[in-house]
């Protein structure tokens, strides 16, 4: 019921290629997310960042290449199996389900709990015990992400920023070893952005997980990321620390030259 104590396994993406109807969305992309680090994926719109996330979370199968988490091969696994191995994600456009914040966070506890249809229908004692325990942990995570006050409110009544946080907290509820954040601050105002950065720092310190981040806000990427991979037209054109990437001439040409445009699209 508590956070994992061991270091998360390494996430390795090797030569992943994805094609849609003749269009190459990802072209032999490779990168490695070091245990416990924050790894940012950046690039102009259409560079393949979201496709890459879809490959990592099993929503999209690559034509070639592999994705490994420690010893486990994720490449051909169904999304729910990948989730069970400890990879959680959020979406660019908010995808919450009906009900309260608690309901949404408890969905995150799905893979960690076991009560099935029969146990639920008959309200067996072990199912109720399990539900209570997980509810406690969900409440803790709500506290960690600044949602404690809204725990029992319907998600539909929350502000945009809070709903984004619900998605974030729901992903954390999986007790993931790898957390995939797809534009976690898109559409947020400055105060909400600052708060989200704090929360990411806090959960990283407290839960010791790896984070893969897709974000257009360069300031935020530079502050949060330990390492950056730059995608352009489906190819990884640069790797390195934020400082290294910032100085890479190819990146400047492909991406930062149009950086202003990218930021506008994100807002």
């Amino acid at each position: 019921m508590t956070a994992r104590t061991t270091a998360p396994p390494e996430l390795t993406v090797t030569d992943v290629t994805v094609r849609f109807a003749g269009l190459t969305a990802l072209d032999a992309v490779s990168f490695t997310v070091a245990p416990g680090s924050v790894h940012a994926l950046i690039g102009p719109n259409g560079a393949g960042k979201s496709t890459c996330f879809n490959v990592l979370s099993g929503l999209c199968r690559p034509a070639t290449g592999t994705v490994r988490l420690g010893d486990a091969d994720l490449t051909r696994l169904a999304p729910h199996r990948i989730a069970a191995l400890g990879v959680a994600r959020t979406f660019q456009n908010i995808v919450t389900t009906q009900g309260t914040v608690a309901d949404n966070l408890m969905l995150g506890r799905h893979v960690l709990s076991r009560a099935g249809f029969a146990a639920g229908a008959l309200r067996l004692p072990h199912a109720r015990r399990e539900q209570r325990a997980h509810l406690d942990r969900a409440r803790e995570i709500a506290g960690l992400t600044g949602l404690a006050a809204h725990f029992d409110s319907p998600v539909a009544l929350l502000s945009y920023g809070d709903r984004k946080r619900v998605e974030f907290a729901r992903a954390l509820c999986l007790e993931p070893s790898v957390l995939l954040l797809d534009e976690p601050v898109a559409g947020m105002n400055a105060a909400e952005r600052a708060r989200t950065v704090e929360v990411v720092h806090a959960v990283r310190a407290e839960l010791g997980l790896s984070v893969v981040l897709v974000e257009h806000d360069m300031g935020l990427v530079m502050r949060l990321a330990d390492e950056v991979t730059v995608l352009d037209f489906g190819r990884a054109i640069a790797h390195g620390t934020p400082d290294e990437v910032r100085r890479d001439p190819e990146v400047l040409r492909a991406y930062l030259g149009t950086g202003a445009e990218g930021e506008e699209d994100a807002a």
Partner: protein
Amino acid sequence: MSERLSRALTSRPARTVAAVTVLGALPFYLDAFWLRIGLFSMAAAIGAVGLGLLSGTAGQLSLGHAFFLAVGAYGYVWLAGEPGPGLPTAVAAVLAVLLAGAAGGLFSPVAGRVRGIYLGVATLALVFLGHHVLLTADSVTGGFNGRSVPPLELGGFSFSTDSELTLLGVPFGAEERLWYLGLALFALTWFTARGLLRGRPGRALVALRDSETAAAVMGVNVARHRSAAFVVSSMYAGLAGVMLALSFRRVVPDYFGLVLSVDYLAMIVIGGLGSVAGATAGAVFVTALPLLMTRYADQLPLVAAPGTTGGTVGPTEAARYLYGAAIVLVLLFAPDGLHGLVRRLRTRLRRHRSAPPPTPTTSRTATTSPTPSPAPAAPAKEPTP
């Protein structure tokens, strides 16, 4: 003080006790006509709750519910009857429910992989194929004329008029006895369905309905949960089928047609998708309406007495017009059905009585409170810390 008293009287256990007392006392006051309406309503409610789980909660449209009702009804008749293994009736009833579940399980390769409204067309097949089997498998189903239903016996007590029984001066016939069976089965349905909805499986199904992608990414095995929802829904339908068979005392194939499936869909839509109470309310509405209209046809304007022909509107048709229109109107103007109407009324009342709920922190929200919030009439009472 009086506030606290009224709170206590309207608390959940109090309401449950009141409902059970009233429902339990009814056979002493109502005649067979009303009891029969009650029996059919309870049976329908059991089936509707099952369909609600599948179509309302999991978002999987099914027009095959009549098939599973038929499996339950005919399964019971065959298992308990002659020709058939002639099992003890209680055993036959339990096995009939399991049989309906197994039938749902056999369909699960389709039910698990075909999504949403597509499943609606796929399940049409069950109704038509099922009806064909009921007509042609004479030795099991009795063919076109159907079969009579052996009355249920529990520990020597028969749910029929075979033995005389008088309680408090009221003769207890089949309707009175079945009433309590229906209540017990409905209570079981209510208890289990709410347990399911509020637990881990219910949340997974809601997630599946709202976003298959999000559900899968959060670790929900999509195909398995869809199949499971289908099987569970079939089992409730089977139970409803057993109850219907016992109430009708005869099962015939033509009853279990597409119209019946549509009736069940009407129940959950009118009641409000995704809630047990809503499905129950819808079931009572759809079941009782034609029976009541038939009974009171001579007192209703525009409705002809049953049996009259020649372009007039008979009570059954009048009822169908009404609930056809109800489906359209409910979906266009109150998509959460009767249940939603009641809930909104209740929220309104509560807001008048106590503090307003926490308001959204910023005004940039796309969705706001679903009800126009009325200004609290009385000063808000904050609970003292």
